[in-house]
């Protein structure tokens, strides 16, 4: 992005208090860590404010000033808390160096339109900070799990060795446990047997339903659509209890087929929604053209329609797969211990034995989910490209 507004250096009365405010904020953490909140806040504010003034007024060279600050705070962190303190210190130093000169040189103003009032400028950045905070709030619980899964202890605890970055505090033993323990392996195979078949059923039925429901002449389209999508809206525990009693009566409870069918029912709404969305951009004159050239409906479907809506089908299928792979409530009701899936095993593991193997599995599952979602995103882009080329 190019600069929109000419910038000029700002007054110390502006940037010193702002930097001091950030210093006070970080001082909260260090203060509570050392057992004295007020001293942390005041100390952080005064220290960072003073440093900002010294850096900008006495050391004129920005590069030297920022490196110096980073080094100084890193050493301070090292003195307080060893190697972890050093790493945090480097980050703090880098951040405050950046912040000080960003404000001092007026760079913060460069990329936003010149007509904004100071209040609007403030809101512009506050908004970004809020978004960042929400992001941190969403992602931290997932990230915290990952280092813990390399714990050498059998508890969910950051041991002193781990915090010192001592290699002895880390181990792969929980991953080894996952890959060698018969219970976990069994659960993984069950998940791998159930999810693909459930996905396949969801995709076949969901796609057919979506195509059917997108025909304008089908009666009660909205009502049928609402019923098919209901598994997504009805609380899972209600579907699960209902399925339990129904499947028990017809002899499907506790069987592999029962779990597959239950998961397929949960996956169908995802497929219907994604495929319906793709069909919105599908040009119906293509099917008429194919029919005109003598292709029967089945050929038309596989040769014309399917390739064009394939991205929607596949992303729906991936959602259905993840639903089945992550699902615990329905399988607890509909399955029996012979169909124990990974989430089920994690659930009982958490309740009975708090073992970091669960964290290792969680880390692996997060990895799988990220891969699958990346695939969905790539497909979405491909579909957008294709749609751009299609005659509509």
């Amino acid at each position, binding site marked *: 992005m190019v600069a929109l507004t000419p910038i000029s250096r700002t007054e110390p009365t502006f940037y010193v208090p702002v930097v001091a405010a950030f210093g006070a904020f970080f001082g909260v953490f260090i203060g509570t860590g050392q057992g004295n909140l007020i001293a942390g806040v005041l100390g952080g504010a005064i220290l960072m404010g003073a440093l900002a003034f010294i850096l900008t007024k006495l050391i004129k060279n920005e590069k030297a000033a920022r490196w110096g600050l980073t080094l100084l705070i890193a050493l301070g962190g090292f003195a307080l808390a060893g190697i972890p303190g050093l790493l945090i210190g480097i980050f703090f130093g880098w951040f405050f160096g950046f912040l000080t000169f960003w404000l001092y040189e007026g760079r913060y103003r460069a990329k936003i339109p010149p007509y904004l009032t100071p209040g609007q400028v403030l809101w512009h950045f506050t908004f970004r900070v809020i978004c960042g905070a929400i992001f941190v709030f969403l992602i931290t619980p997932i990230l915290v799990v990952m280092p813990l899964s390399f714990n050498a202890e059998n508890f969910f605890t950051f041991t002193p060795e781990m915090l010192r970055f001592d290699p002895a505090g880390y181990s792969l033993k929980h991953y080894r446990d996952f890959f060698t323990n018969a219970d976990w392996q069994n659960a993984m195979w069950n998940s791998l047997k159930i999810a693909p078949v459930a996905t*396949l059923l969801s995709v076949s039925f969901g796609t057919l339903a979506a195509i059917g429901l997108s025909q304008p002449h089908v009666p009660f389209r909205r009502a049928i659509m609402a019923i098919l999508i209901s598994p997504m809206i009805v609380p899972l525990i209600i579907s699960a209890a209902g399925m339990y009693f129904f499947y028990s009566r017809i002899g499907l409870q506790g069987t592999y087929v029962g779990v597959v069918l239950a998961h397929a029912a949960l996956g169908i709404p995802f497929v219907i929604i994604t495929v319906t969305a793709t069909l919105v951009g599908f040009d119906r004159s293509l099917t008429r053209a194919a029919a005109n050239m003598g292709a029967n409906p089945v050929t038309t479907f596989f040769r014309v329609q399917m*390739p064009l809506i394939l991205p929607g089908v596949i992303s729906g299928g991936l959602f259905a797969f993840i639903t089945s792979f992550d699902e615990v409530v329905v399988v607890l009701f509909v399955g029996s*211990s012979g169909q124990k899936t990974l989430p089920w095993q994690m659930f009982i*593991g958490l309740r009975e034995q*708090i073992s970091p193997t669960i964290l290792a599995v969680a880390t692996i599952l997060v990895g799988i989910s990220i891969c699958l979602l990346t695939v969905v995103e790539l497909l979405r882009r491909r579909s957008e490209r294709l749609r751009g080329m299609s005659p509509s």
Partner: protein
Amino acid sequence: MNLTKTLMTSTALTVAASMSFAESHMANEMTIVSWGGAYSNSQQKAYHDPYMEKTGVKIINDESSNEAVAKLRAMNEAGNVTWDVVDVVAADALRLCDEGLAMEIDPDEMLADGDDGSKASDDFGDLLVGDCFIPQIVYSTTVGYRTDLVGDKAPTDICALFDLEAYPGKRSLEKRPINNMEWALLCDGVAKDEVYDVLETAEGQQQALDKLATIKDNVVWWSAGADTPQLLADGEVIMGSTYNGRLFSLIEEQNQPVAMLWDAQVFDLDGWIIPTGLTDERKARALDYIMFATDTKRLADQAKYIAYGPARKSSAPLVDKHAELGIDMAPHMPTDPENAKNTFLYNYEFWADYRDDIDAKFQAWLVQ
């Protein structure tokens, strides 16, 4: 077009594969329900593995003992009992028996005689509570503490839980009245044999809650057996109640700086029930398993893997060393005379009668 073909082929393959998976081998297998974790592990090694080897029956583990009562009710209602043998605590066995969800047992008929020739009913003795319960182990709920966080004077009796002056810090207690109410009264000056008499009265219940209220702000309430060990390992609490087997594993197997009290620990029983509503074939299999798994030798074997005492008198002399650590298990058993000097006997009848009432009061008190 290639894409479509690939898709079709993979579809066909998946369907074919699923068909072969779907073929179930219901014929010769049984589902045994237990608590999971180290406890299930000890049963796997002491009972399931030798039994599978001996008979060729495939045993499937289900870790649902926690909600066994609710699930058995639902299964009964749905007319589809999928469990063959269920491990429950004695109190749950009594409830299931009363509701007709567990089969009645004739000990001398259905259980093996002891190695010393005694009849099963004598060998298990008082532990055969109710008509459906087949005792397996004796465990106790007791208190563990962090040796490095309780100061110079290590706690020696249960009232350390209520002594905030000598032992400031958080403690963890189970989120239910059982055990907590008894301990509160004991530490409020009530004599051991009068605890349940006092607890029968509304004033007595209030007295127990008032005593608990003195530490309420410092209590972390737990509901899963794994919670207190985790909290102790984290140093989040300085002491907490849990099962003695969990503390044994925390101290001896995980080498955490934790020690345990053997004072006013609450004795309880855990064992098997066979659900009603099984077909004759499955019932015969379940009884055969029970006969095997509760004989003198198997019960003693289980103690090699976990610190719970065998329920048969004839098993006690056979208790051996820990299978991996090689330490003598007898001194870690709740049944060891040294540990059982000041035990507290859990009163089943009292709790069967008063549980709902006191539960409601306790939960209301919790949210105050």
